[in-house]
């Protein structure tokens, strides 16, 4: 007992200060990309050829679908003129799938908070059922880590629950394999209304590297109505938490973070 208490003291207080202060990210972290069509050399389209998922297009300007992007920087490496750049901005969650398609010089229209009535019901206590549907255990790892003392998800009133009947929403990872189709539908049906769905990671948004494979359905929105999309491969835990908190209207920058 003695030893446990001493160890506890030595391990110290480790919970970060979200939502007011974001913990530091590694310098090599790749967040929101910025496109510069003016720098784009005419018609080389080397980025398209390099991209594993067809996320980037250099036809009539530069366009990137963050829902497909794996943040692998193959496009950046292929581009002779530096027209694609990845910033350290971790905020990527949106509430409209269309908002993930970004154009040159554009920022991201970040996720809107859920409606007032929903917030009254779920705002202080959001229970989520996490379902892995063909995920690689990458998104699952970074969704799960939010429960550790560093992130302490429950201080925001958010909890992962075992039974869909106790849940207010579902978090889906993976492209939704054919073999998980039924399980995802049944889990969704078992969650009482009103309810929310979060698609976490490139696979759950677009099928990711598996898009087009006949063994999967191309993302969560093919099966359930998705309210929030959190891109990445996998998204950093900070990006995921930011998405959850945005849904609850709890991010301090939420009034200001709008398309310029």
């Amino acid at each position, binding site marked *: 007992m003695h030893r446990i208490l001493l160890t506890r003291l030595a391990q110290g207080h480790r919970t970060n200060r979200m939502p007011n202060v974001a913990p530091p990210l590694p310098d090599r972290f790749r967040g929101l990309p910025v496109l510069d069509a003016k720098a784009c050399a005419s018609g080389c389209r080397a980025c398209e050829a390099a991209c594993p998922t067809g996320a980037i297009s250099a036809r009539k300007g530069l366009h990137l679908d963050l829902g497909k992007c794996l943040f692998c920087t193959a496009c950046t490496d292929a581009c002779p003129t530096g027209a694609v750049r990845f910033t350290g901005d971790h905020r990527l969650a949106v509430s409209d799938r269309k908002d993930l398609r970004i154009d040159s010089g554009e920022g991201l229209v970040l996720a809107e908070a859920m409606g007032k009535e929903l917030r009254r019901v779920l705002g202080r206590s959001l229970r989520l059922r996490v379902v*892995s549907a063909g995920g690689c*255990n990458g998104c699952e790892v970074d969704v799960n880590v939010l429960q550790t003392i560093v992130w302490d998800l429950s201080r925001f009133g958010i909890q992962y629950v075992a039974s869909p009947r106790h849940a207010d929403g579902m978090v889906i990872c993976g492209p939704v394999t054919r*073999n998980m189709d039924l399980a995802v539908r049944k889990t969704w049906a078992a969650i009482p209304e009103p309810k929310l769905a979060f698609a976490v990671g490139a696979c759950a948004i677009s099928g990711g590297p598996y898009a087009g494979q006949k063994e999967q359905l191309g993302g969560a929105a093919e099966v359930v109505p998705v309210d929030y999309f959190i891109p990445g491969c996998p998204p950093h835990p900070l990006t995921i938490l930011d998405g959850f908190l945005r849904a609850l209207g709890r991010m301090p920058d939420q009034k200001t973070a709008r398309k310029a």
Partner: protein
Amino acid sequence: MMSGNLARVSNGAALPLKKVPKLSPGAFRDCVIASVASGSRLVALCADEKLQLFAIMADDEAGILGMARTALSKPAYPALTPECPAAQLFEREMAEQQGLLPEGHPWFKPVRGHLPGRPGPDPFGRKPAEVLAGLIPFYRVEGTSIHEVGVGPVHAGVIEPGHFRFQCLGEEVFHLEIALGYQHRGIERALLGGPHAATLKMMESAAGDTTIGHTWAYCQNIEALSGIAPGPRASLIRAIALELERLANHTGDLGALAGDVGFLPTSSFCGRIRGDWLNLSALLCGSRLGRDLVRPGGVGFDLDGDRCLELRTRMEKAWAETQAAVNLLWQAPTVMQRFERVGLLTGEQAQEIGAVGPAARASGLRLDVRLQHPLSGSSQSLIPHGWDDPAGSGGDVFARAWVRWREMHHSIDFLSKAVSALGALGEGKKAERRDRPALGANQVCLSLVEGWRGEIAHLAVTDAGGAFSLYKVIDPSFHNWSGLALAMRGGQISDFPLCNKSFNLSYCGVDL
């Protein structure tokens, strides 16, 4: 002892296909069975789309790998499983993937719930609506007091899907059957004719918690088949990343084991410290899971002097905290009482099913790719061997926990030597990115990496155009899931979460 009919191969070295002896189906079968009977291990048994079978055998003590092949004239052959149980899942897999019928297979059931890629009848005779994961004829113990417990595919936590079917008498488990395939996304089928644009990303996400292990195995094949060597610096950075991946996952596993017996201090400390290890991978490449670090021909990011220094400082801190957190575990009699003599997998059982990795070592088997089939130029000889400690060979939950703990010490030893060795290699220069170089035609290459769960095996065969005519991915979990089923026999069903965690196997790595 290895049969003379096998072609000797080395880890990560390409070989012209014609150098692999093409045996008659009978001689092929005898060769595999005789090798296994004399103590060799079945690393892989697989088929291409043209009824050609490949077998890979390992004599681990002698550090020898051998390969044989045969061509069938029809999609059926006498099963190997009755004489070689380690072949059971491989043969079921070939039936489901290539439609090959293993005649006389005693446990003939689908593996993942999909139809064969090769045209022809489904060997399992399923109706279209029955081709789904989990639709298999489960074993059933009959009797008035027997009850059946089904769990999954959706489990009670943030876990991948799978279905577990228990046959119980009260608390006692007579039998556990595990049905997987829910995460099947068609990776191996997609690899045919490749490498394609998305191939590298599929390898990184074959088992996303083992990104470095699988991607390294893949890149080693690509490098051997294209003649591009990664160079000592890149190899060393890969080896550093591999051990960081091991440390993160072993820390997480020890914490989770503590959690499953209700010992919260270690559970909550390790949950956090695991993140610190993952953040060291992010220091290397920006991704906590090591995405985009390992690439054909080298690594995406170098580790300069300053970064090495930061790595060393943070590693030492994380290690000190890990030790403080984990040592509480061994000092708690209540924990030891729950870990010991639970979930027993004997050495004979482990050998029979072809178990690998920490789970096999915890049952007393001596196998570790890093020592016995080292990767070329990876300096993995710096890893001390782990079987000096009889405490961790009892085959129970305790042994599987203890083996991980010993391995973490070895990883730390390695890392501190490797970081110094990296400094001595001089600065790295950024190589041009070549994710898909041209591959040699009609070649075969086997690549093994000791991931944190055990041996990762990738087998690549190219056709006359240098495209994959076969690409086999074998996650260690493929061998080890049946170990979990055996370990539950005669145990209490309430011990399942603990036993399951002590193996901590991958679903997506098997489902592919």
